[in-house]
């Protein structure tokens, strides 16, 4: 049976989603690290039509100074949406939503960072959503983790995130905007894969305990898939330099 909400077919007769994906299929992911010249670290992450650019500065001096901690660096995160990233123009001033998401993204990233090497400093992350089509906070986490690694900040691991959810009896992975809006539940999750810790967990909508378990399991599989892409993107530049050099020498 197809599932229709607000005139949109979210799941068709064959169990395909509004953009043709299977329930656990990710959108095409493109990742590029080190895209900005002036930032200390940067990354562009595209999850389908959701596009996020993240930059990192630091460790650097803290302003105002009284925020400094004597034994470790502080992490500061700003998540912002470009005014034209959504259908209705967003006002440039940060909304309550952007402020909340900045906080939960910070708390998703912080457990992966080794902050005690830089007392009295700040590490600053800025993530700008260029285009929003669902999953902007998880794309921001994926981009920010890469920008942090690109800035040479010591980390226990990358942080990788995905949104999972429910449409009727279907569990869906990597929700697009329509599914996010009209679906029955949406649950963004971030993990530190090597320690197997969940560092972001939010949900809205409803799920049975069984559906919740299935969501967690699907999220973990998706996260490991994205994690591999993140690592590949980090290595890519170095392998590219090596390749160019080999070609140069073989001439």
């Amino acid at each position, binding site marked *: 049976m197809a599932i229709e909400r607000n005139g949109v077919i979210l799941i068709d007769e064959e169990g395909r989603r509004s953009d043709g994906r299977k329930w656990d299929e990710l959108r095409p992911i493109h990742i590029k690290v080190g895209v900005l010249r002036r930032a*200390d*670290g940067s990354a562009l992450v595209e999850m389908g039509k959701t596009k996020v650019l993240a930059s990192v500065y*630091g*460790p*650097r*001096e803290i302003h105002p100074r009284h925020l400094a901690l*004597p*034994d470790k660096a502080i992490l500061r995160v700003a998540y912002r949406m470009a005014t034209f990233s959504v259908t209705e123009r967003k006002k440039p001033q940060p909304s309550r939503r952007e402020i909340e998401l900045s906080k939960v993204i910070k708390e998703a990233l912080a457990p*992966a960072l*080794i902050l005690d*090497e*830089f*007392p*009295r*400093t700040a590490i600053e992350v800025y993530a700008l959503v260029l285009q929003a089509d669902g999953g902007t906070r998880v794309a921001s986490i994926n981009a920010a983790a890469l920008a942090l*690694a*690109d*800035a*040479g*900040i*010591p*980390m*226990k*691991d*990358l942080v990788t995130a995905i949104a999972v959810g429910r449409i009727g009896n279907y569990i869906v992975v990597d929700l697009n905007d329509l599914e996010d809006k009209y679906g029955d539940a949406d649950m963004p999750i971030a993990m*530190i*894969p*090597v*320690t197997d810790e969940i560092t972001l967990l939010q949900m809205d909508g409803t799920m049975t305990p069984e559906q919740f378990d299935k969501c967690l399991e699907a999220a973990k599989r998706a996260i490991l898939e994205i*994690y591999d892409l993140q*690592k590949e993107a*980090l*290595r890519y530049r*170095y*392998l590219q*330099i*090596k390749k160019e*050099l080999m070609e140069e020498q073989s001439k």
Partner: protein
Amino acid sequence: MTIYFKNMDIVVPGDIIARGDYKIIEGAYKLGDMIVAEVIGIVYIKDKNIKVVPLEGSYYIPKVGDIIVGKIVDYNPVSWSVDIRAPYLARLEASDYLGRPIDPSRENINRFLDVGDLVIAKVAVTDRSTNPQLVAYGKGLGKITGGKIVYVAPPKIPRILGRNQSMIKMIRDITKADIKVGNNGVIWVKARNKELEELVIGTILKIERESHIPGLTERVREFLVNGMKKLELGDK
């Protein structure tokens, strides 16, 4: 005991380099019986020692005894604030530059060093609670005049120096240039002429870019020798 990477492979944060009884020199941490990389870097595995030399990072963490090239950004009657590319500004007392005490009621210290001047200095004191303190009085230390400055990522400095300074010595021997390498990723170069300075800078940037690829010394030697030949032809 298992090793998952080859010597000189590139690792990224979260990569499990090995399992078992290894000793970590730097750039990795222990998680249960796993040795996990904490930065993007080149992994060196020798016997039971594992080291990850970072490839990224535009910041410098000062260590006592390091030589740095710093920029004067401010001063007060008795000391200068120096940008050493660290998260903290360093302090240089007037007496640690002049080698004598100063009477601020009679002398203005910006006569000796002004905002925008560069100094070669040594890190004298640094700990977690105070800003680093520099000394710029002594052989090879002091204000920089002439020549050119090149900036590299501070983690690349060990490669530019080479083992027992072999790489930098080779560059000096071939080009006869005067080169001072700051541990903070700032390098000062002064050579016979501008073209030669450009060659030295080009060499340094080549090392920075290719530091992760084996055979670096030979490539650099070839680059320098070819560069010198071209310059000599140009002279004639």
